[in-house]
């Protein structure tokens, strides 16, 4: 096991190095550099341009620049942004990460859940109307032109019906006197939400672990779960955070729903296919024969084993949520990592663009690794043999 992890880690680092090299030279090969921004202003003398090139290290050779970059990268320094000079790239990424993370994590989990539940249902009712309807509707949203769909939904829900806020991720009027920055609140949301989620999991696990869910246990689980949530909310409200969290949640509804709408079909269809295989397994038939209720057979027998391939896709999609969605962020004015990438590219800000891409790469690599391990945890049939799993 240890050898496996170590060799795998070596592979991860090597892959990362190659990835960064590729990203670096890919961006280097693009035409134009930051000093071209001065083209728009003829009053900037040549001397100032040269000074800038020197300041940004552009006067050195490409190879030299690359080596410096890699050295710094593994030290955790991503350099200084050109377009936000002299802000460190890391600083900008960290400013954007919490927002991106909260939005896309929520959206991916929700879309995964909806997809999983729907997939379960339509596989179970294969060939019925609900199967065809959900498949066609799902595919239609899955292949819908996202920016347009987002605009239409904004127009309907935020503009015409005025149910939800129009764009942005917070309401400036509420926040203008806020004692904390939005990122602090996002931070609380991540940590607090995580803690509550783990707490709830533990509570439900403790009370409902067995198969026989007595009324008393269910009631106790719900009761203590509610207490936990209430305590968390109370704490947030005492800290004066609640109204701000609420505001963020309020702004999240539309983008999260839109993202869910366009992406649930992926999980749904994957789940359906996967489950169509498992429903043919003998143990599902056996479960029926045992006289277990339909939903239990579906959820514990057919769906439980069918979930495995979808979990991999969930983990990978969570990782890609680090890179954010340019479209979502643009359409909903949610400035996150995707926007950083786009604007840095437009401004020829290579350190920032490279940094954002590299950052995403690291997360994806870690996610691949986690997916492997999670797979093993979920499927007791797979045990680590000390050998890398067969490719493919």
């Amino acid at each position, binding site marked *: 096991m240890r050898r496996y992890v170590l060799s795998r880690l070596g592979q991860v680092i090597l892959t990362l190095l190659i990835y960064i090299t590729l990203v670096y030279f890919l961006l280097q090969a693009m035409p134009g550099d930051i000093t071209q921004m001065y083209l728009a202003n003829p009053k900037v003398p040549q001397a100032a341009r040269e000074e800038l090139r020197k300041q940004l290290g552009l006067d050195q050779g490409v190879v030299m620049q690359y080596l410096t970059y890699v050295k710094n990268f593994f030290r955790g320094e991503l350099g200084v942004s050109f377009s936000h000079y002299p802000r460190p790239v890391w600083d900008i990424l960290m400013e954007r990460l919490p927002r991106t993370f909260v939005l896309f994590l929520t959206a991916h989990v929700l879309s995964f859940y909806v997809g999983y539940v729907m997939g379960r249902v339509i596989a179970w009712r294969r060939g019925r109307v609900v199967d065809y309807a959900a498949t066609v509707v799902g595919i239609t949203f899955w292949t819908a032109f996202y920016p347009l769909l987002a605009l239409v939904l904004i127009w309907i829900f935020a503009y015409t019906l005025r*149910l939800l806020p129009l764009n942005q991720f917070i309401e400036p009027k509420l926040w203008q006197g806020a004692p904390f920055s939005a990122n602090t609140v996002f931070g609380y949301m991540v940590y607090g939400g995580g803690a509550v989620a783990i707490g709830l999991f533990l509570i439900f696990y403790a009370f409902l672990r067995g198969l026989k869910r007595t009324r008393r246990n269910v009631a106790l689980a719900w009761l203590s779960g509610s207490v936990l949530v209430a305590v968390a909310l109370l704490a947030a409200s005492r800290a004066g955070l609640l109204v701000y969290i609420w505001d963020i949640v309020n702004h999240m509804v539309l983008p999260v729903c839109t993202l869910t709408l366009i992406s649930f079909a992926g999980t749904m269809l994957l789940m359906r296919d996967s489950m169509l295989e498992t429903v043919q397994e003998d143990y599902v038939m056996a479960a029926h024969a045992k006289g277990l209720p339909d939903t239990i057979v579906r959820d514990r027998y057919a769906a439980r084993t069918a979930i495995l391939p979808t979990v991999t896709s969930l983990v990978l999609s969570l990782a890609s949520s680090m890179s954010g969605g340019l479209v979502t962020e643009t359409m909903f004015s949610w400035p996150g990592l995707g926007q950083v990438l786009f604007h840095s590219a437009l401004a020829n800000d290579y350190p920032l663009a490279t940094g954002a891409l590299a950052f995403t790469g690291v997360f994806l690599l870690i996610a691949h690794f986690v997916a492997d391990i999670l797979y093993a945890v979920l499927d007791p049939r797979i045990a680590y043999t000390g050998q890398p799993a067969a490719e493919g």
Partner: protein
Amino acid sequence: MRRFWKGILAGLLFVFLVAGVASTGFAGQGKLYEMAIFADPTTINLYSSLGPSSTVWNTFVSNSQYYTSLYGNAAPTWAFVPSAAADMPSPLKEEKIGDKTYYTSIVKMRKDIKWSDNTPLTADDVVFSYNAVLEMDPNKLGGNWPSIVDPTVLERVEKVDDYTVKFILKDKPGLSQWQYGVLQNYIVNKKYWEPIFEKAKKAADPVKELFAHEPEKQPTAGPWKFGHWEKGAFWQNVPNPVYSGKGEVTTFYENGVVTVENPKTGFKWQSGKPEGKVQLKITDGPDATGTLYRIFQNQSAAVLSLTGGQVDFVLNSLGLQRGFQEQLKKAPNVALIENNVNGFRFMAFNLRKYPFNIKEFRQAVATLIDREYICEKVLQGIAFPQYSVVPPGNAYWYNKDVPQWGKGLTRSQKIAEAVKLLKKAGFKWEVEPQVDLEKDKVLKRGKGLIMPDGKKMPEFEFMIMTAGYDPLRYTFGLNIASWLKEVGIPIEAVPTEFNVVSSKVFDEQDFDAFMMGWSLSLYPDHMKFFFHSEQAEPGGFNAVGYSNPDFDKLADDFVKEADMEKARQKAFKLQEILADELPYVVLFDTPIIEAYRSDRAQYPYTKVLSGLQYVGALTSTVKMLD
């Protein structure tokens, strides 16, 4: 299944709950003036915001809102007026200091201007604002600094007394360097900034250190000071409680005279003897209780917010697209403004190459392009034709009598005229184009253009914008190419990415022809930068390689000229030369369209070159209605 529906139901319920509780309307209330912008500003720091990471958004939210300068241009006429100064600078005087001869000028300052911490703005602040930048080296600060605190002109600034400063200049400056340059530098608070400069100077990279400082608490002398910045969401400014300009009245008279009068402090100034009617009277505020800049990532959302009443104005240096204009016309409580802009779009050839260096060839091209057709028909009035390198909107400097090639001619007349011009220069055809002037028809398209040197003209590339970048200019480019082809000019329009165009044109100077646009400053010294032969080397701005000794001399004289009226005559002459020689074939420009909430904001004026965005949407003179 049932559980699933329950889940959906619970989800919906949650959505409506959230919606019901939280969107209880933060729509326009109170006297908060709200504007939409489209990108995060990059910094609060004046030095970095005028430096290399200068963006228009920084200008909107901070620079002009916080700082004052000795002199400024009074919108909407752009008259040169004192602002922290009490009167016009004393005339430049030659003076020997040490063993060098300098030009000097004395500026008397107003005594009634206060910083937001209630300390007076004195000569010390002014001296510091100039000398600190000079010590830092404006070239190292980069961006706009070398053109504001121009080290080729300014030696240093000295304090004479608490409210008088003396400028010591290395050389006799022109208008652009003096009135439109040095004298308009922002004044910062010495007490606040001095330690920061001191610390920066000791750092390994002083510029980086200076730029990295975020002066959230600095005192300002303008109407606003920094309030709150939530990156990616909004920027908020709060009023300067002791703003000395409050209540100050600026009056514009028919004869161009501007008067300034502050009833509170008793300050008075006038540019001359007022005559005729009062054209405009502006009372400074601010009336709004604060300014809030909401940051949006897409224009549709910003405009939706405008009609929904969440913002009062959409700040965008490009204005609104025509589609919005048409849709906003009918929106209640939304008013539209249309203004000329200071810029132009043009087509240019590489004059280093044959036969593009033949003047008649370019004149023929200019004749063939039907700007009116494109602007009125294809672009339906969202663009206006332009012939001079100074746009008509810049009325003081614009020469309306420059040659306008092909204006008012029909298609066939244009072709006939172009053929005449080309023949004059010695061009021939394998198949000469023929037109029927009576019926305005092309009888025969030209083919095989033969250059005066007897060789067949090879096909050449005309770089135009890509359809994705700008569909309008893309279409215009395609149209130009098809007109030129009619007379047999072997042009091939190639949609090219902007980065590629600019690096081919400016860095490599390896191109045949291209289309591009400039936006300009008020003072038209761009004529020197774009066409002077000293700018012709790679990296310079005269990328087309225009070279005319007479023009060079006149251009040099023009930028050195310190007298407004004489400078104007020279600018007219320059325009004439350029319109005849055509190093640029000027094509058109688009007006700027803006919209605001008429039920919320009331502006002293809306007619101004480049629109209200150019004056930061008048945060201190807007009247907010409840």
